[in-house]
Every structure is written in C-alpha cells, then in structure tokens.
C-alpha cells in the first residue's frame, strides 16, 4: 500500500497535528498550517486518528496510487483529476490501483490537504509525522516531497459508504467549504501584544486600519508583511524569550512578521500583536501578494470564537463519521 510522487508541486510536505511538548528542547510544533482543513480531510476518509496528510502549496503534486485508495481533498480550491477525470473536493473519493492523481494550481488560497484512508504511514519523529522544513525534523529529515518518493499508506478496513471496487467514484454528497475556507478577504482578529502600547501613535492607528501585503519571502515559518513601516516610540532592547505561532513581531526594519507553524521557539523582537487562534487558518490561506489587515479583538472574543468554531467542527466531524458508516 503506497503512493509514488511523480511531480512534487511547488512545496508539498507531510503534516499532521504537529509535535507539541518539545519546545523546551528547541523543537517547534510544525504541523498543518490550516488545522481544520487537515482535520476535515482526515474525517472524510474515515481516519479515526490524527493521521498525516499532504499539505500542498499553491501548485499541487502529481502522484500514483499503487493500490486502490480512498482519498479526500480540502483547503484551498485546486484543480484535481484522477486519470484525467475531474474529481470534487470536500468529499470522499475511491481511486483504483495504478491511477494517477494530478493536482494543478489553486484558484484562491495557498494550501490544500490530501488525506488518504489509513494515513501516510511514515515513522513518527518525536511523536509526529509532520515535516518541520525549517528545523529539518520528520520523514527524510523533514524535507519537502520529491519526485520518486514512495509513501506507505496505513492498512484499514473498507469504508461502508464506498463499498465495491472499480472506477474513480466520489460520494454523492460533499461538505460546504464555507466557513472552513474563506473566499473573501476579511480583517484578521488581532490581540494586543505585550509591546503594542510602545508603538508610536501613527503606527498604532495603521495597525488597526491599514493594509499590509504578504511578502513573497513568506513560508511556513513566518509571513512577512510589507507596507507602512511601524515604529516604536523608543527602541526596545529585549532578551530572548519563548515565541509562538500567531505572534506579530516587529523587527528593526519596521515590517511586521507574523510567526507561523514552524516558528522558532524563542525570539527577541518586540511583540506588537497576537493573531487570534481562530483566524490562524485564514492567515495560512493567504498567498504572497494578498492584502492583510487586522481588527482589534479582546481575549474574551477570541476565546469565544475559538470555542464556537471547535464545537462546530466537532459536530461536523461526528456527522461525517456517521454518514461514512452508512452503507
């Protein structure tokens, strides 16, 4: 049971829920940038565990299923064909052994997830199958997928809802991508950071009202925001302390940096904001050149939205599991 990578796409890597618990050793969490999309892809193939999926970036890979498989695509809308037959996203699809899945470019957004039933069964490193491209931890030292890579798939029982073999067959239902993928740009909720009050007056105003552009230097470690340079009232000399995904740092250049999934575990730049956790998947779906703006959120609002989203996601995961169990 395996998959062969025929073309790697722009940047494709294995990702799961990441490896929490090792930051004190200098090891970050990594993991899927758009967590809910990754979870839904796993749910759609009936994976009970938090299995690794392929995270594709802007242009997806082409790969061959050496055996029949059950797959699902979620996240950014992408052109997908199995043996030249277009297949829908946000649903479950049977693909025959020997078939080739070709993923093209993304119409919107930046990251698409491909899950397979049984998961990509590479050896976990520090409890996770995520590739930390920056720290070089994970399958094959955490590198991106390459042409010729062979990824084993975990063994599983057939899915009741997709009984029988044969051709490329998607289910007759699919999920509404909304609200899990946002087609329109809305401001991201931002909490005040520890050093927000030390920005000068015009920088504070610009942070809430102004537009930034996501730089092409952005990656899984950080999103660099071009635009009006932000300034502190006076320079701050800080000593290094723990850093987090979602933190908006201000380096001396004045161009803020939003730390992402592969953020280093420590940093010494002023922290001017923290992107609300509920909006991190939307930040992950922005592509270089996209506009980024922020609106101020309180911790209470951020916690309430996070908890509401989690409830909604849990309900959906349960519904999917029930429907997949039906013959």
């Amino acid at each position: 049971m395996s998959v062969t990578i025929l073309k790697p796409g722009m940047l494709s890597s294995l990702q799961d829920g990441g490896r929490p618990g090792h930051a004190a050793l200098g090891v970050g969490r990594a993991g899927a940038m758009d967590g809910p999309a990754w979870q839904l892809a796993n749910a759609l193939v009936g994976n009970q565990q938090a299995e690794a999926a392929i995270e594709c970036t802007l242009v997806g890979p082409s790969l061959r299923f050496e055996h029949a498989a059950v797959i699902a695509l979620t996240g950014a809308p992408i052109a997908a064909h199995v043996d030249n037959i277009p297949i829908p996203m946000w649903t479950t699809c049977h693909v025959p052994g020997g078939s080739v899945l070709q993923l093209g470019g993304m119409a919107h957004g930046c990251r698409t997830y491909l899950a397979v039933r049984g998961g990509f069964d590479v050896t976990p490193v520090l409890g996770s199958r995520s590739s930390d491209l920056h720290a070089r931890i994970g399958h094959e030292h955490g590198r991106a997928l390459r042409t010729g890579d062979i990824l084993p798939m975990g063994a599983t029982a057939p899915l009741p809802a997709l009984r029988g073999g044969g051709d490329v067959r998607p289910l007759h239902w699919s999920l509404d991508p909304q609200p899990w993928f946002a087609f329109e740009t809305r401001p991201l909720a931002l909490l005040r950071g520890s050093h927000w009050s030390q920005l000068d007056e015009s920088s504070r105003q610009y942070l809430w009202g102004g537009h930034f552009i996501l730089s092409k230097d952005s990656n899984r470690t950080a999103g660099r925001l071009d635009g009006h340079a932000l300034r502190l009232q006076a320079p701050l000399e800080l000593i290094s302390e723990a850093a987090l995904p979602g933190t908006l740092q201000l380096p001396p250049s004045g161009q803020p940096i939003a730390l992402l999934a592969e953020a280093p575990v420590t940093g010494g730049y002023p922290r001017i904001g923290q992107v609300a956790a509920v909006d991190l998947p939307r930040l992950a779906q922005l592509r270089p050149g996209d506009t980024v703006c922020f609106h101020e959120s309180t911790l209470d609002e951020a916690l309430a939205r996070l908890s509401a989203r989690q409830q909604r996601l849990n309900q959906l995961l349960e519904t999917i599991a029930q429907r997949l169990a039906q013959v």
Partner: protein
Amino acid sequence: MEQDIQYETLAEDALLLRFGDRIELALNAQVQAATAHLHNHLPELECVPAYASLLLRFDPSIWAGADGQHPHQQLQAAVSTCLRDTDQANAVPREMVIPVCYGGEYGPDLDDVAASCGLDADAVIARHTTGDYRVAMLGFAPGFAYLLGLDPKLSVPRRTDPRQRVPAGSVAIGGSQTGIYPEILPGGWQLIGRTPLHLFDVDANNPSLLAAGDRVRFRAVDAETFRQLLDEAAAR
C-alpha cells in the same frame, strides 16, 4: 518567590511568567526552579523556560472556569499557589562535561578571538575551560543551548560576515554568550573549537544532550582524542 512574578497573556493557550528583564544567573535560577516545580505538580502544562521568563502552553478548554473566569485567571491562580512553596535551594543541577578540541581546523576563529581579547590562544582556552556555565535556555535550533557564565574577558562581537554553514558541534562565542551548534546551521558567532559529542538526536530517549538548568564545563582535548571520541559517538 511567587510575589515577584508578572503574568502576561500571550495567546488563547499561552501564559508568560516574567521573573525579570535581564540576563542574570539568579533570575534564570528562579526560572529553572519554577519549571521543575510546575513540571512535577502541573504536568499537563508545557513549560518553555527562557533567560528570565517561563512560557506555559495549556488547553484553554480544560482551564475555563465554570463561573465565567478566564482560563488564564484560573491557571494563574493555580500556578501562583503551586509556586508559593517552591524551595529553590533543593534543586541540584546535572553536571555535564563537554570535551572540546580548540583551535586549528575545529576553531578557525580562535586566533581572532584571542587578538580581540588581548590574550594569546592558550589563555583563551584556559579561561573558557575554567568557566562554570549554566544552560539558561534552548532555542534557535533543536538542542542549541544558550550558556551563562562566560568570562567577561572573552566577550567578543559576532562576525561581520556570518557563515552559511557552521559545522555541527562547533563551540562558539557571540557577544557575552557561549554555545554549541548542535547541527550544521547558519551562524555569526566566533568558532573557537568543536566537540565530538552529538548535541541532538531525535531517535534518542532524551533527544537533547543538554537541558535548561544543566551545569556545563568544557574540557580541552587534543585532535587525536577528538577523533577517537568522534568514532565512539558514531558507533553508538
């Protein structure tokens, strides 16, 4: 010790305990003592110690209070109670000895460092091996330890032209700090020697050789011993 701690909410699942804002052995010792204590009493928290602060990551859905209290308030109360009876004196640090081959191909910047300090190379080695160091924190890369305790006389500026590939095991000085590169990394610190030990191994039970709070000493070895130790490390 708990009355000196400032609590900062960093994110929905993150609370920072600030003990101070300077790089100081005594402050860092408080951080290590708190880390050890919380690790024992609230093991569900992820603790990330730094020079003068300690980050706690937690599950906000578990710490949310029934009475509408913030998870951060609940957690802060629990942490504050827990740290009230921390006895700093009882923490005995682990002592780690790191063999280093100084100078030559392993420490290409040793002569520059010596010139910059107004010492000869042997005096730099003597001062570096006399030092009694503490691991203040790990960061920058997996297993990279920031050490406190460098002889102020050995403080030298970082290189103006950082290297793209610093060899694994390089022992270096950057400003008033000294550290060891656990793997091939870009870096601007001055390289004075190299250790044959593996600092980080994801397959080991304890992936990082060094942990925050460890006491560290450097021991000078010659090139032959270095190669011998390197072979032993590779055979393991």
